[in-house]
């Protein structure tokens, strides 16, 4: 018997452009990933996890993610997360989650002021999160970034607090910080560990043809965790 395919919807805003890649990657890794329009007020009933994809929601006017966070679907995502549901934000999805207050910090224009599009090397700081179980602690992943506003910011006190609570899950390796992010942070989780956001694009690194399969370690971990939550809820 084949393993059950957990349902992991991918939210679509006007201006999202990585929703199909995320959908394809998740389905490749064993999930069913319907795309859900941002005006929906509810997630599909059988939702086991949600992905907020990359792109330029609402043109990223004002601040990246600032307008998208008021979409009806975000209220549903907030309720889902408050119940312990798994939420992953990639790039613009990460920006939306910080604007919505579901993740700490804020994303600012890259220190270089240039759009950056290249592979980066990331260090996995923790493997006991639902997003990194397929990784090894200290493992280095090669995953592309492509963003103009990926400079994660938090003040010193917040960084220290997040460091001690283990929420700084993914970091750019020394010398490979593409955007000036404080403390080389590439991905951060909430205090409960069920919401995670990262600037790099794991969905663009799930096939050898794309140069790396390291993104499958992140998305595959999410599919595993979603499958477990499915088994627990039966």
């Amino acid at each position: 018997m084949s393993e059950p395919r957990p349902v992991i919807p991918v939210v679509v805003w006007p201006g999202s452009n990585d929703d199909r890649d995320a959908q394809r990657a998740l389905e490749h890794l064993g999930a069913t990933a319907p795309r859900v329009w941002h005006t929906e007020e509810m997630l599909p009933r059988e939702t086991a996890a949600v992905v907020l994809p990359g792109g330029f929601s609402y043109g990223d006017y004002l601040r990246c993610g600032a307008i998208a966070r008021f979409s009806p679907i975000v209220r549903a995502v907030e309720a889902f997360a408050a119940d312990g549901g798994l939420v992953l934000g990639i790039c613009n999805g990460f920006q939306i989650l910080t604007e919505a207050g579901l993740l700490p910090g804020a994303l600012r224009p890259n220190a270089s002021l240039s759009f950056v599009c290249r592979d980066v090397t990331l260090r996995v700081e923790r493997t006991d999160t639902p997003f990194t179980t397929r990784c090894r602690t200290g493992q280095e992943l090669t995953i592309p970034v492509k963003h103009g506003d990926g400079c994660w910011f938090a003040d010193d006190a917040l960084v220290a607090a997040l460091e001690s609570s283990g929420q700084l899950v993914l970091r750019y390796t020394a010398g490979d910080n593409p955007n000036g992010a404080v403390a080389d942070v590439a991905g951060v989780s909430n205090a409960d560990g069920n919401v995670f956001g990262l600037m790099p694009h794991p969905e663009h690194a799930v096939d050898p043809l794309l140069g790396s399969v390291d993104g499958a370690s992140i998305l595959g971990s999410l599919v595993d965790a979603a499958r477990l939550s499915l088994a627990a809820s039966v």
Partner: protein
Amino acid sequence: MLVRPKPGILDPQGQAVESSLRHLGFDVGEARVGRLVDVDVPTDDRAEALAQLERMCEQLLTNPLIESYEIELERP
């Protein structure tokens, strides 16, 4: 409404402006770049207008972690 990056926040746009001004020969210190948002509020009540504009800044126009704001009222 004037929205500014808070002190201490890296402002690469401000740095680019600052360096361009120096290249043009202006003797300048630090430059910071913010945002100006003009909104018509259909009320004659200054207190009411101010309260509404404050809520706009808090809810949407600024991210309090990285930006501060100032409100100026003007009659059309």
